[in-house]
């Protein structure tokens, strides 16, 4: 265990009767890029503020390294938080902002401004030290906030949706940059986002949260390919959810009776279901094919189609169940299916069956 490790030991945070974080229990390793992913209001900020020391856990402990953080104020913790709105000091210049953590530690003016210059160099913004914060662009402010947080070399950098205010292109650029900074300085990054793309591209591991509960902690690929709950399956990436009752299970393959007939999929995580269990079958749009399959075939009515550049999204209706099918754009116009009835198929091992639970956005 290094000083940069963080342990959340059965942490619950309540506001009155409202439970914002429910029994979070995990360990974040030193040097890791760790993301919390979840919809708005699921308790991400609350958990982050708890790690920074702005609110104490109602139950459980937060450990940094081996030290229990109880009673240690935010200014005494080896963490630096980058706020959702950055919270740069508007009355100070860029250099003064970056030098602030040094100023409050009594570093002399010359030394701290020199350090500010170094950091500006690092974030590729040399020479802007004299500017006021409002004179910078969104992306530049972003980088200044990071530089300010790094000024005293904290062990852990906490980032609260820092990219949410940026436009798409800048966001993509900053993702790469953040990842590069993290690898260069080797800090523990704890990153909060409700954007799954962000979480999946940057993180070593992702924790998916729903209503204060951490539902799954895994590397991005596992989260995407082998979700453990129906919430995770529906929140991460596009997917089709089809509700049904278990008819039978043979080894890893589950047969489900649904509104649109009997479908088969694999049981997630080696679960075994009893016949009659309420379940969801999830199939990704890109795994759904416009051809019959001997394992699963569904007939559906074409509703509309959207062109997305690299792919086409086809929206279909199968006896009241909305389905979505994604095709890679081959460069040629495919057959026009407008208004027609089509047959869809998918392989059983591409579909996963998960117990009934919350769906994202439902």
């Amino acid at each position, binding site marked *: 265990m290094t000083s940069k490790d963080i342990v959340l030991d059965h942490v619950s945070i309540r506001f009155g009767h409202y439970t914002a974080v429910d029994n979070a229990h995990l360990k974040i390793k030193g040097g890791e890029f760790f993301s919390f992913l979840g919809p708005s209001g699921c308790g991400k900020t609350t958990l982050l503020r708890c790690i*920074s*020391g*702005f609110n104490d856990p109602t139950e459980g402990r937060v450990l940094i390294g081996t030290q229990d953080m109880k009673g240690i*104020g*935010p*200014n005494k913790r080896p*963490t*630096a*938080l980058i*706020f959702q*709105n950055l*919270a740069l*000091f508007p*009355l100070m210049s860029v250099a003064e902002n970056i030098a*602030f*953590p040094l*100023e*409050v*530690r009594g570093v002399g003016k010359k030394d701290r401004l020199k350090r500010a210059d170094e950091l500006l160099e690092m974030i590729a913004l040399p020479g802007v030290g004299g500017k006021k914060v409002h*004179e910078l662009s969104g992306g530049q402010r972003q980088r200044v906030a990071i530089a*300010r*947080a790094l*000024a*005293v070399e904290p062990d852990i950098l906490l980032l609260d949706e820092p990219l949410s205010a940026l436009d798409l292109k800048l966001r993509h650029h900053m993702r790469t940059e953040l990842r590069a900074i993290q690898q260069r300085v080797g800090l523990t990054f704890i990153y909060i986002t409700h954007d799954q793309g962000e979480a999946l591209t940057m993180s070593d591991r992702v924790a998916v949260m729903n209503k204060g509960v951490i539902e799954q902690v895994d590397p991005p690929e596992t989260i995407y390919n082998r979700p453990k709950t129906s919430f995770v399956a529906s929140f991460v990436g596009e997917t089709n959810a089809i509700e049904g009752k278990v008819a039978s299970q043979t080894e890893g393959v589950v047969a489900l009776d649904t509104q649109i007939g009997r479908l088969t999929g694999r049981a997630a995580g080696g679960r075994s279901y009893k016949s009659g269990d309420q379940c969801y079958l999830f199939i990704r749009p890109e795994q759904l094919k416009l051809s019959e399959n001997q394992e699963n075939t569904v007939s559906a009515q074409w509703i509309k189609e959207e062109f997305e550049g690299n792919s086409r999204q086809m929206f279909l209706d199968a006896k009241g169940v909305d389905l979505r099918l994604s095709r890679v754009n081959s460069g040629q116009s495919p057959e026009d299916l407008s208004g027609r009835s089509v047959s869809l198929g998918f392989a059983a091992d591409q579909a996963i069956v998960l117990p009934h639970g919350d769906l994202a956005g439902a």
Partner: protein
Amino acid sequence: MNRGTGGGFVAAGFSLLFFAFLFGPLIIMVITAFNSSSFPRITPWECFTTDWFGVLFGDNRLMGGLLNSLVIAVGVVAIAVPIGLAGALALSELGPKLRATLYTVLITPILIPGVVLGISTIVFWGALGRSVGAGYGSFFFNGMFLTLAGQVTFISAYAMLVFMARLQRFDPLLTEAALDLGATPGQAFRKILLPFLGPAIGSAAFLTFLASFENYNTTVFTILSDSTFTTALASKVRLGTDPSLSALAVIIIGITLIGAIVHEAHARRQEALRTGTAPRSRVYGNPVLKTLVHPLTVFILLAGAAGLAAYLGSQHDASACKAGILEEKRARQQQLLDEQRKRIEEQRKQAAPTAPSAAPGKASPSPFGGAFNPGSLAPNAAPAPAAEPPKSNSPFGGAFNPGELKPE
């Protein structure tokens, strides 16, 4: 309405009337300050004089009051601003319910009439003083202290309102960010919140200073036998007014104008600096003009002009002109007396009664035969028979005017 329908004329006429209404009294007041007539008026114009300023500064009661007012105002600023700040900070930290209650409590002094505050201040401190056995010489019965205490009760609420308005725009996350970056709560307060409140501290200090300086309702009770500027002024006005009050108005207007112009210069400069248009602007881009419109230069220039005017004014000697006027008045009086004497002689000759009221009316341009002219009441002027002092603005016809009592 628009220009085509003649709305432009109406609008222009209205604006003219509006400004006449607004500034007319001020302009007239300023002019009267330089007329040697011992009652503030423009016509008849007698002599251009600056003596009324001398009279003003020679008024010991008023000057003493001014000093008291300044001392009290500085004291009020020093106490009310921190209290207001503390109150506003406390309110911003509280939950909504408690905040509403405390807000009502803190704001009540503004709603209570000043008279009530004044009386209750005396009663409260008096009772307190007696209960601890303090004598009448102690501060419990000191007008200055009581005024300070009485004014602070409601003026700190003004300061609090100013701070609350500013605090509402403060993002508390900034304080948290400072803490997170390693600042102690004290450092976060000093380096983040206090600079943010800077402008509000300035305006609160200004507001509390003015509120204290111009307060009358409360002060008139709490000052006891002492006097402040306002109470001295009020008792002076009650005894009849003379142009030294106009002179005071000139000074106040002058200070206000200088303040307003300097403030405007400062605001424009800030704006140009903030928007970054300064280097491109015609005024701020030019090094000579730039220094010329700098608030400090503006202030020095204006203060210099005012100082020069004051110096020139103090050198001005209107005594020759005044002597001429006095001579004129004497001659006129002599003439009136002569006419009177003639009339009486005629009457005696005819030995027939005439309506007395008609006679002076014909001789004098005014129906009262100049009786309204306080100058005619100067001690060495023999009273005209018709000059039973009629309804003068002051029952003493300006006899209390200090200028009037100067030895001729």
